[in-house]
Structures are given as structure tokens and as C-alpha cells.
């Protein structure tokens, strides 16, 4: 099983040179730490920054410089600031190449739920609905099952939807999977020590398993 850091490390391998990337709150934010140094990428923060740098040292903290998770940040070399309308113009217009975000559920059609649990939790969708409706490539970082063992990779999402037919790839604590254009999950890799059988049993949606499924390797 992968821990959060390993999920982030595995997702970082999906990043390509020259990409502009939006990272969601939680595990996705960690991805920034593991992008290979030889790749040149720019991180977008939907509250108005292209070029997120590392977290500041204590003496460099600036309350006027935060990311979408409200964390204090710095600006990378060559960054640019803009307002929220311009930020989502950028997102909606398809200029951001890759979006990485968390999910509560993903369906075999690529639908995603991550903003609301009726009667229980209402935090709001923030920028997630704009991001998933607009990005060409969406990778989800999530746990394969809920705390009580229910699969979160479903035939249909049970929670209110954030976006439809949008998720392209999922990295969970158990596996890496593609969402096929025609529907269904395709198993690509399994976490160290996790069997194909376990993944099959913990995936409610239609799962395609073809040939030998390699085990992920981490340094």
C-alpha cells in the first residue's frame, strides 16, 4: 500500500516537461516536491499566481501571498500575478495542461465527486468544478476505499457530482488506473505488496485487467 507521499511521488512521474499544472489541496500539493528537477513546469494557483515557489522560510512569510489551500507560499522565478477572473479564464480556456486533485468518489465513466456530503458536510466546490470541466488531463489522487472499506471507484458516484466524464487517471493507495474513454477502469500498476485480486475485490466499477500488472517501484 502507498502512503500519501508515495501517491504524490507516483503522480509526479506523470508530469511532462513544459506543462502548466494546477494542484489541488492535500496530496496533490505534495506532488510539487517530487517533480523531477530536469523538468521545467509551472504551477498555477487559482487564486491568482502562475509560478508557485517553495514554502517560505520564517522570515519570508507574506500574508499577501498564499496558494488556493490558504498556505503561505513564495513566487518562483518568472511568475505572474492576476485576478480570479483572469485565473479561471486561463483554466476554462484550456491553457492549464494538467490538473491533479483529490476525490471522494470516481465513477467508471470518469465522473468525480469531491465537494459535498448531503446533510453532513458542505464546504463548497471552490474551483474544482471549473477545473474538472475544463482541463484536458485530470489525474485524481485518492484512497481506494473509504474508512469502512467501501470502494470509492464506482459504477456511479453516490455523492453529488463535481464533473462528468473528466477523470483520465487515478492513483490510489493500491493502484494506478486509467479511466477508459469508453468507460471502465483499466489497471496499470499495483502498489508494492498489493495483489491484483485485492484491487479487483476493492473496485466496484468495471475493471479491466490485461496481462501482467507490474508492481510500482520506489527508490
Amino acid at each position, binding site marked *: 500500500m502507498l502512503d500519501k507521499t508515495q501517491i504524490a511521488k507516483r503522480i509526479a512521474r506523470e508530469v511532462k516537461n513544459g506543462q502548466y499544472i494546477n494542484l489541488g489541496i492535500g496530496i496533490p500539493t505534495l506532488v510539487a516536491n517530487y517533480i523531477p528537477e530536469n523538468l521545467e513546469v509551472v504551477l498555477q*494557483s*487559482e*487564486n*491568482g*499566481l502562475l509560478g508557485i515557489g*517553495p*514554502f*517560505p*522560510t*520564517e522570515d519570508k*512569510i*507574506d*500574508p*499577501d*501571498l*498564499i*496558494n*488556493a*489551500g*490558504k*498556505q*503561505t*507560499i513564495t*513566487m518562483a522565478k518568472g511568475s505572474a*500575478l*492576476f*485576478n*480570479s*477572473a483572469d*485565473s*479561471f*479564464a486561463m*483554466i*476554462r480556456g484550456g491553457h492549464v495542461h494538467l490538473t491533479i486533485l483529490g476525490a471522494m468518489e470516481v465513477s467508471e465513466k470518469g*465522473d468525480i465527486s469531491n465537494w459535498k456530503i448531503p*446533510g453532513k*458536510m*458542505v*464546504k*463548497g*466546490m*471552490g*474551483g*474544482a*468544478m*471549473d477545473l474538472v*470541466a*475544463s482541463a484536458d488531463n485530470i489525474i485524481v489522487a485518492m484512497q481506494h476505499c473509504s474508512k469502512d472499506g467501501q470502494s470509492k471507484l464506482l459504477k456511479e458516484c453516490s455523492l*453529488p*457530482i*463535481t*464533473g*462528468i*466524464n473528466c477523470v483520465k487517471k487515478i492513483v490510489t493507495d493500491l493502484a494506478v488506473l486509467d479511466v477508459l474513454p469508453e468507460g471502465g477502469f483499466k489497471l496499470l500498476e499495483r502498489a508494492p505488496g498489493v495483489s491484483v485480486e485485492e484491487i479487483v475485490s476493492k473496485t466496484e466499477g468495471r475493471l479491466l485487467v490485461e496481462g501482467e500488472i507490474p508492481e510500482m517501484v520506489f527508490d
Partner: protein
Amino acid sequence: MITKTVKNAAEAVRDVVSDSVLMFGGFGLCGIPENCIQALLQKDLTGLTCISNNAGVDDFGIGLMLKKRMVKKMISSYVGENAEFERQLLSGELEVDLIPQGTLAERIRAGGAGIPAFFTPAGVGTEVAEGKEMREFDGKMYLMEKGLRADFAFVKAWKGDTAGNLIFKGTARNFNPMMATAGKITIAEVEELVPAGSLDPNHIHTPGIYVQRIFQGGDYEKRIEQRTVSKE
């Protein structure tokens, strides 16, 4: 040059009345009009509709207005940092219209720009689309969303001049520039107010035409929600 200066926050908010529609700039607690919120808290207001990306936290920002029960309705995209908000919402004391962040930003821009409606893909297939017109363009589905305006817009800038021109700093810009365009009366509080002519016209983010009143605020707390640091 048209002068927009008022003395302080109290004078700036003098004619805000109950049941008004108000916009507040800021993302989380970053770039919020702290002085105007304090001045509004001194007034005996109820039934307000507040348009703001977030709803502050329990003891700061718009959270204080919620606690004082001044707010009838919130129009926001994310309200996750505020327990009192969640309580009022789940108990039905507070009306809430949750809007995707990009749609919220664009609706405010549209309101200020004389565009009554536009189409966006955000929210297609979700409960946000309920009751809204859907339309296909080039094989993709979109929702029709409408422009938003307010009786008063409260924005916070870094520098401003007496003509109402504004410059924001860092990511404290966020929703402030669009909201400045969408207020029937826009009130700007700035950290530093300078005479007209002191700012480079090429650096101005919000032209003075959008600002009806401006004053130099004080005692900015600039509270940080998630203090994160790197080791040296």
C-alpha cells in the same frame, strides 16, 4: 482629476442599509477589506446578502458578520473554514448559494462589464446546472450563467490614489478587481493612499472609474490561515 477620498471606514459605509447586496473582495482572509468589515459591524444591519468567495473564519472577516446575524444569504464558492457558517447553514438559518469559483469570478466580471449572461462548462452534469439553460457549442455542453452586481462592493488594495486607481499586491488581488467593477457604489480601502499622479498608469490594476470612495485603512491584521514554512 475627480477626487474620491473619504475620511475613514465609518464615513465610507455611512449609507449602507439593511437588506443590501454587498460584495467583499478577498480569498480566504487574504486581501479582505478589514476596515470596512469592522465599520459594518458597528452598524445595526440585518438581512444582508454577501457575495464573497469565502465566508471568513469564526472570529474574523465575514465570520464576524455571520456571528452577529447580519447576513441573510451568502453567495460563495467555498466556506470550509467556518464552523458557525456550517451550523447556520445546516440549521436553515442562513441561505447559501454555492457557485463554482470561476463562475463566481466571471459572473462578477460580467456584471461589471454589461454582459447579462454567458456560457460556461463548469457545473454541467451537477446540481449547479439544475434549472439553468444548457446549450451545446462545438459538441460540448455549457450552462448559461448570469452577471452579478451589488449595491456596494468593498475592496482592499495595497496602494491607491485620490482618483481611485488601485494596485493590489501578491495574491491579495484575487476577487477585488472584478468586484470593484460590479458595485453600484464601490468602496476601496488601501494600505497607502497617494496623490493622483503618483502611480504609474501602466501598473494600475483597477482604474479609478470603478471606485466611488477611497480611504487609507489602518491596523491591518492580515491573519494567516495556514502558516507553512520551509526549513532554511
